[in-house]
């Protein structure tokens, strides 16, 4: 997912075209932020500024907002294939440097088109699918078509999903656009027109918009909009103008009240994307081979990622009998001293930039350990320094509290554990197939878990908002999920929460339990643990605790719970995927009911780049 914007304006306007595009890119940063760039046309000259990094950083380095021109287009990228780099950043240009394009989407037939164009002498600079469009337009333009005709012909040849903007040095007042399966909106301003992949980029300048339909192409100038349906003829833009009532803030959240809620509900999609990504990536098997040969395996991370790491360690212990040592990244010095060549460290970080995890990874590498990175951001610091990076495909996560990145991390790490067991020969073929089959259903499980529990979570949050302290208890494979539930409610609802193995209650913590004390039990689908947890629930109930059970639909414990949060009956290995979404909802609704903003928890930052 990427963000694109273009503006046509006269020199007399309050904001320069460069400023408008720069600000628009900042508004679109939630769609991606690993590289960015702009292209402007001024007095017949096309100028491109682009690079890897966040938009604000690039502004300092390149001065994106300083570009001048009658037309400017911009792009902010979220790499899914091909590393973020200066060369791969958009805009992309043709051979002559007189045509520039930005694109959001995927060109499915780019390989065939590229081969053909290379045969005709075109020279490609990047690894992206997008660049092919610039050369295709050039090809038609060179053969005598006018800019718009050349653009249209090129668009009619590409397959896939796209929102594309193009500018020509020889057409200095026009931005050409095309849309199919990727969003694109025109904004009708006062003496200027804009086009962008999403409404937030436009709202500062206009509320009058035209939402483009699939198959529409056309161009804007500062005073006019021309639209046609490819192959069918012109469309009257006036028939499609509407006034946007959204506030700037809500527009970027896709109508959800908070990014966190949006991201919670994106989990089924994110899990499926991660699964498909891993299936087509040989890195997972490579990683399993590295681990199978390892002398010892360590896994490190911070915060939510640490809980994913803990899930990995418990899963590996259960299906392979190999001991994985999990540790919190900031405590790396206690572990790095014992590291030798032949050891392997898995470093898990959503951003790939977490300083504690990075330092742990460097310390291990210095002592000869091999490094496998797990991250959501391609080519970020930790993956870059690793021997082998593995990626979740959760898309950008804006809410500070991790949600979809946790469940996708646990999916990736569970698959890695299963591959490791298979590589070592610890699993029967049928067992391997069963685990992989269950993990392949992650998206469906998360969907059910969310759909079944939104109402229940709202109800439970009405009780939790009156409480000052809460326990999250589990045993075995459920423990990392309980820890994640406790962390979420601490982070965003400012409710003191503690997670520990339920067997520990009698060794101290149960002293705090009194009438109405809330205890959330995370019950994995496992008869052995269910039996153990039964006793733990009873000891809490005997002391008047208010017990919420997050348990499989076929649990035998449901009558013991004051509130039953039903999750799909699946294998124990998917526990974080089935049980975490309702815990996220619980934290979210408790936070909003208490009047807090879950997207901006106090004292916390999304990426922790300090020790």
């Amino acid at each position: 997912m990427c963000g694109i914007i273009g503006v046509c304006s006269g020199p007399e306007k309050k904001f320069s075209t460069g400023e408008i595009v720069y600000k628009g890119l900042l508004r679109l940063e939630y769609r991606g932020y690993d590289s960015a760039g702009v292209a402007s046309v001024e007095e017949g000259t096309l100028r491109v500024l682009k690079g890897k990094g966040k938009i604000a950083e690039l502004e300092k380095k390149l001065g994106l907002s300083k570009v001048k021109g009658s037309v400017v287009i911009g792009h902010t990228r979220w790499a899914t294939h091909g590393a973020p780099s200066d060369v791969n950043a958009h805009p992309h240009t043709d051979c002559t440097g007189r045509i520039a394009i930005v694109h959001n989407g995927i060109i499915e037939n780019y390989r065939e088109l590229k081969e053909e164009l290379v045969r005709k002498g075109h020279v490609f600079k990047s690894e992206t699918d997008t660049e092919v469009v610039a050369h295709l337009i050039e090809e038609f333009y060179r053969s005598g078509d006018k800019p718009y005709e050349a653009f249209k012909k090129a668009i009619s040849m590409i397959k896939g999903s796209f929102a594309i903007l193009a500018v020509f040095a020889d057409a200095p007042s026009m931005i050409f656009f095309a849309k199919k399966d990727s969003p694109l909106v025109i904004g009708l301003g006062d003496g200027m027109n804009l086009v962008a992949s999403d409404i937030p980029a436009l709202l500062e300048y206009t509320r009058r918009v035209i939402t483009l339909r699939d198959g529409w192409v056309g161009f804007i100038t500062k005073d006019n909009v021309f639209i046609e349906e490819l192959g069918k003829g012109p469309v009257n833009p006036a028939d499609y103008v509407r006034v946007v009532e959204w506030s700037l803030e809500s527009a970027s959240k896709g109508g959800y009240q908070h990014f966190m809620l949006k991201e919670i509900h994106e989990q089924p999609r994110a899990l499926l994307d991660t699964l498909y990504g891993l299936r087509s990536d040989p890195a997972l098997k490579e990683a399993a081979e590295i681990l199978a040969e390892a002398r010892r395996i360590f896994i490190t991370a911070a915060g939510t990622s640490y809980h994913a790491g803990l899930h990995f360690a418990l899963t590996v212990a259960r299906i392979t009998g190999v001991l994985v040592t999990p540790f919190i990244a900031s405590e790396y010095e206690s572990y790095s001293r014992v590291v030798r060549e032949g050891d392997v460290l898995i470093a898990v970080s959503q951003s790939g930039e977490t300083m504690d995890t990075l330092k742990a990874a460097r310390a291990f590498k210095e002592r000869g350990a091999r490094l496998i990175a797990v991250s959501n951001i391609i080519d970020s610091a930790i993956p870059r320094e690793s021997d082998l990076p593995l990626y979740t495909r959760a898309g950008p996560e804006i809410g500070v509290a991790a949600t979809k990145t946790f469940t996708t991390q646990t999916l990736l790490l569970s698959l890695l554990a299963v591959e490791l067991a298979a590589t070592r020969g610890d699993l029967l073929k049928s067992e391997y197939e069963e685990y992989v089959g269950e993990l392949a259903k992650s998206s469906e499980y998360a969907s059910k878990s969310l759909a079944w529990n939104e109402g229940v979570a709202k109800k439970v949050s009405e009780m939790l908002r009156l409480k000052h302290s809460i326990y999250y208890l589990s045993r075995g494979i459920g423990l990392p999920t309980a820890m994640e539930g406790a962390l979420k409610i601490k982070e965003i609802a400012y409710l003191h929460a503690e997670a520990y193995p339920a067997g520990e209650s009698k060794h101290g913590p149960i002293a705090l339990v009194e009438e109405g004390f809330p205890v959330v039990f995370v019950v994995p689908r496992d008869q052995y643990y269910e039996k153990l947890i039964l006793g733990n629930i009873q000891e809490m109930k005997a002391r008047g605790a208010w017990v919420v059970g997050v348990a499989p639909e076929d649990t035998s414990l449901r009558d013991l719970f004051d509130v039953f949060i039903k999750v799909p009956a699946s294998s124990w290995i998917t526990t974080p995927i089935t049980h975490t979404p309702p815990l996220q909802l619980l934290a979210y609704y408790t936070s909003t009911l208490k009047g807090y903003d879950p997207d901006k928890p106090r004292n916390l930052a999304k990426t922790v780049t300090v020790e």
Partner: protein
Amino acid sequence: MLNLVLAAGKPSPDLGVLVPPRSNKVVLRVLGKPIIYYPVRGVYNANKSTVHVVYRAGEDAVPREVSATVDYPLEFIEQEAGESVREAILSAKSRLEGDDYFLLSFGDLIVDPEAYLKLVDTHLEENPDATILVAPIEPHNVENYGLVSVDENWLVRRVLASGGRTAEAVYTMAGVYVLPTRILDYLEKGLNLPEAIEALARSGRVKAVLWTGTWVDVGYPADLLEAVYQLLSKVRDVEISGKAVVEKTAVVEGPVIVEEGAYIDHYAVVKGPAYIGRESFIGAHSFVRDYVDLGERSRVGAFSEVKYSSIQPYCLMDSKATILNSVLGGESVIGIGVTTLNVLPSEEAPPRLREHVVRRGVFERKMGAVIAYGARVPPYTVLSPGGVYK
């Protein structure tokens, strides 16, 4: 895209007792506005074109109330026959033809205006065959609503008629839709709306848009209480009209809205969240607290207590009444000392009644009385919990 609001539905028997003659449930009041104000505002905000309102022949209060409440362009369509949603939509057929899509809302919904915007924006951006609003459902309500199951892209997989049970990921259909005009063909063939939507989902893409904010489908008296609860939960401050009178010794503690012409007598305590309607009266020493919606020109007699109740316009309550978790019909007269009991026997649960946290660690359902439009309750009557008084 044309706007269509359906306001010809029949109420459940318990809700029906609250509806005045020649009227419809959509004109029952919530926070000073008829229910239908909320969907009409929603569709118009999201799609600035004439709002077509289908109402039942003979229920002239509907066009009258709607016209008096909003100044949007309106057109009224009289439905002469049939009681189903299918027939209501078909009664607007001549208006719908000629447009590709229409924005449809049921008239008995209270939904945030942003939900309509989200629905229309999603539809325009993603261009599916149809787009429908869905809402989360509480487990005990699964059998009360039409449900849809969705895939990971929020495309509708299956539509289940009301009362269906399923193990799939399901949400309730929230009564707001962007539908293609060609759906009329399915309806004309006899399919009901859920079946027609399922037919669209089978042959194309029907997008579901999740709304997790305020959503109340007013079908039962408890829904009126829920609507009051949800809307008043959003009020944050004390807003007292400059044309209201609050006597010096009265206490008004927020969040409370006091409308123009309201009068709050000495020593009365209004402890919000509460809505005190236009020209209403709260007598001396009365206690109005926690989610009370006091309708226009209603009267709370001296020394009364009112809690968590919806009081429709022109209700006259004599002194020393105790009204708890109740719905009082318009123009009803509540005699001196009337008491509504509200603790339900544990096995009773009126449809869709919210459980409230009543003390640490305990949820309870409470329901007082439903008093019919124009009913007269004799002095010192004690009304049993969950009962309907006609």
